[in-house]
């Protein structure tokens, strides 16, 4: 089993969610996060004083899946979350050693 994690622009979340659902993905977890990469932060002005804000708001999307689904999920996210501008985010895939469904106690791919 794999965990696909994508950090994307917040306004793209709705589009990505719909595309993943259309591709048959049953569930996902979303967190509001802040961070920075190559996209620089922004400046805010309060009473004439400028504040440099380094951490940019992003959405972290996590999808737990079987190994064979990874490529499809990654491609779907890549296609829908892309604007072509700096700050589109990243996708990374990690191994999920074991999965349980809490309600039933099912384990492994039955639990996804």
């Amino acid at each position, binding site marked *: 089993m794999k965990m696909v994690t994508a950090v994307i622009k917040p306004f793209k979340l709705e589009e990505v969610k719909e595309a993943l659902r259309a591709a048959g993905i049953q569930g996902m977890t979303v967190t509001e996060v802040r961070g920075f990469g190559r996209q620089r932060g922004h400046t805010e*002005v*309060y*009473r*004439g*004083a400028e*504040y440099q*804000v380094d951490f940019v708001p992003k959405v972290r999307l996590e999808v737990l899946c079987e190994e064979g689904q990874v490529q499809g999920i990654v491609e779907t996210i890549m296609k829908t979350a892309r604007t072509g501008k700096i700050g589109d985010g990243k996708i990374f895939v990690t191994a999920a050693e*074991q999965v349980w469904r809490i309600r039933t106690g099912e*384990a492994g791919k039955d639990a996804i």
Partner: protein
Amino acid sequence: MPGINTGDTAWVLTASALVLFMTPGLALFYGGLVRQKNVLSTIMHSFFAMGLVSLVWLAAGYALGFGPDRLGGFIGWGRYFGLDKVAFDAPGPVVGGAPLSGATPHAAYMIFQLMFAVITPALISGAFAERMKFSGYAAFLALWSLLVYSPVAHWVWGGGWLFRRGVLDFAGGTVVHINAGTAALACAVYLGRRRGWPREIAPPHNVPMCVLGAGILWFGWFGFNGGSALGAGAVATSAFVATHFGAAAALLGWAIPERIKHGRVTTVGAVTGAVAGLVAITPASGYVRPWAAVAIGFAAGMICFFAVNLKFRFGFDDSLDVVGVHLVGGIVGAVLTGFFADRGINAAGDNGAIFGNWAQVLDQMKGVGATIAYSLAVSFLLLWIVDATIGIRASEEDEVTGLDLSQHSEAAYSAGDAGTAVGHGAPVPGGLAAGPGAPYAPAPR
């Protein structure tokens, strides 16, 4: 009741409640501007004054401000300690040819004045936000109210020396704003900078809270200025009208240079500009015509927009711009009152420089200078005394942790309901297991 007008009394009591409401408004205005870890301590700097200053006022504050004149107009002394002989059914003593309280009971005037005494030291708190020890704050609050606020109120309103010189301060430009703004400068300099200022201080944590607070201030200010007429007639109405147009013009007076300099009109800028206008119109309302209120407000908004940068120029950490808004806005208002005052609005006032009476501008400047000199000297002295006895600045650890947790054992916004009660109201052990549903049993892998 002889000498009491019921309409006037109704308005002064209503105005007193409006002015009281400004202090929690100020708490929200300031609270939104600080970082999340200090919002409660900042709110307490205002709200606590509603308790402490009120009792100080009852015991001695009113007596020092409005008792019989002593020391050549410097202070009141000899009556009204513990509010003794402050009548509910008769006007106050005659000061300068008219009863102190107009055609309202002496006690109505006393409670109206109390609300000013409460908000004035609360205004100062913007300068020491995010780093003052709570016990030191409480001691400074009580001492400052007695030894700075009451004497200056006596000078201007209680029949003191500025009153006799004909300084025009309708609702407290000198007594409240210049006085608080000067003490703010003393606090910012004495306490020193917050850790990380100016480079590593985070921006305001809740701008909508500031807007709500500023809105409440604007609303309450109608009582502050309108009520200062001590009656429900033409002067109160003109003060009310001038107050509104002063604030409105100042909002734009701030927004226009901000748009030019930074390319955007900001929310914090709009509310700060409005407050600067309310500050500046305070001494003038009740003496000026609406067009003059617009001129005063617009000037205050524009000048304060630039004045809030003084702290960076001179390196003092006036956290929430009390100097830039209240001291500078107060001076603008006090001086311009000397320009635009019009006896056609208020026969008890005087004509200003627009009628050729330049002496009024000079008188206004004397009032400003005296207030600044006295407030600066005594505020520094009181800070030094409090510092030497109980301490005034929070420790480094307390400051970094945040004053909400370190000074008050509270957090404004908890991350969910993760806390567990201890002591009274603690949950019964095993309470969850007794609830519905089957016990958890892990499935075999």
